[in-house]
């Protein structure tokens, strides 16, 4: 059974054909970093405009690469939130039009559920497992008891970890995207040279990365002759220590022996290294999906959509996107 997935939640236009929720037949992602590098961040209107230009070519390419025709597609799965509203609108509008014209069932997928589903395109972790989704827009921990059964354990109360990376990178004079630049120069710095505060929020599984951004700013103001490598290294270790400590604490408290890392920040080399060490110390089975499946892509949306479709959870043409769409939280 083939599902066409479409994701336009942020800066990438992506389309993918996935078989039976697990086998990627095609997965096209139009990386738009070349546009965003010039503007220092995810620029929403530019992103929307690029999505309009790219949505047809990207979907066409995904179908062509899969050797599929619309009559072969069982359902179209589209991200309807959370994300940039102007960007989401393009994907949802396009998916509805295709579904209507070709009389294909339509399925709505929460982008965060898509992230969690990505691991199944490569591996078969047993249930339950702990999922850490960490990117420019999200930093959340979930307990996953089965496909479709998610419980939010914690989330950021202010900035996402990737957002802190981007803002600190800008502060240090690096261009977008900030994460890889910090990761690169941090390797040359001394992580012990500057001790930035770790926000553990005792007794809570939530995160806060706004204070570290302010701490870096204060440090830069007071030390104009600063060494960027040391700042990057100190900042990075403060962020990743909190991420690793919190996710492994959660696994212990929930008595769960499996952790899966997702999102753009999970490509960070220092985070991967520390997480691997911790998992091995704690006897945790760690899953690190490939980078191209950790970052935004439509294969994960198609995979999640497959399960909605087989359970008969369909969307109709009144489907609208929503920027704010928590997954598995008490209020969601």
């Amino acid at each position, binding site marked *: 059974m083939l599902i066409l997935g479409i994701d336009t939640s942020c800066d990438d236009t992506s389309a993918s054909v996935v078989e039976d929720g697990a086998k990627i037949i095609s997965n096209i992602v139009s990386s738009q970093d070349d546009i965003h590098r010039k503007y220092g961040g995810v620029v929403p209107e530019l992103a929307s405009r690029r999505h309009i230009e790219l949505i047809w070519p990207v979907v066409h390419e995904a179908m062509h690469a899969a050797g599929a025709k619309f009559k072969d597609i069982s359902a179209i799965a589209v991200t309807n939130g959370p994300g940039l509203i102007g960007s989401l609108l393009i994907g949802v509008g396009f998916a509805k039009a295709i579904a209507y014209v070709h009389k294909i069932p339509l399925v709505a997928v929460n982008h965060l559920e898509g992230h969690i589903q990505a691991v199944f395109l490569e591996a078969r972790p047993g249930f339950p497992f702990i999922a850490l989704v960490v990117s420019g*827009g999200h930093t959340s921990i979930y307990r996953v008891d089965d496909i479709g059964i998610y419980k939010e354990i914690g989330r950021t109360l202010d900035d996402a970890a990737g*957002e802190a990376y981007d803002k600190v990178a800008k502060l240090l004079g690096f261009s977008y995207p900030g994460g890889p630049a910090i990761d690169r120069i941090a390797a040359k710095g001394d992580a012990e040279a500057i001790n930035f505060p770790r926000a553990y929020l005792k007794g809570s599984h939530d995160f806060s990365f706004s204070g570290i*951004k302010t701490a870096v700013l204060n440090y830069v103001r007071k030390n104009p002759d600063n060494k960027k490598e040391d700042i990057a290294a100190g900042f990075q270790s403060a962020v990743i220590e909190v991420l690793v400590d919190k996710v492994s604490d959660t696994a212990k408290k929930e008595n769960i022996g499996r952790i899966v890392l997702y999102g753009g920040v999970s490509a960070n080399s220092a985070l991967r290294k520390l997480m691997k060490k911790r998992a091995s110390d704690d006897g945790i089975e760690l899953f690190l999906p490939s980078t191209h499946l950790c970052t935004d892509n439509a294969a994960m949306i198609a995979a999640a959509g497959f399960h909605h479709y087989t359970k008969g959870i369909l969307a109709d043409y009144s489907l609208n996107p929503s920027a704010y769409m928590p997954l598995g939280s008490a209020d969601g």
Partner: protein
Amino acid sequence: MKLQSSSDQETREIGRRLGKRLNAGDVVCLYGDLGAGKTVMVKGIASSLGIDERDITSASFTIIAEYNAAMPFYHIDLYRVTPAELPELGLQEYLGGRGIAVIEWAERAEGEFPDNSIRVDLRYVEDHTREIEIKGLEI
């Protein structure tokens, strides 16, 4: 009026006091550098309107976040927005209607806000101390 805050908690409390004085249609423009406490202030304002401040996170990523409280609450963050994109952001749809709009990085859209907007400047003094100046409303 000028106030001094020596912590996130105090900034939040000032936000709460400010929020209690707001009415439908009010626009609050926040000015201040990275780390000045703008999002913290928004948390305070939102909580006075009955929104769980845990739900208020940085809006730099989504630009416009909409919450349904007793009246609609719009948390807008223009950090990433360039002047060329402003006209297409649809900002006016959120200003002066049935809801309350609070805008971070308001300087990125100077001239877009109604004359009776409330202006809040958050200025870095040192480490955790900020000077908060509110114009257009007594709290």
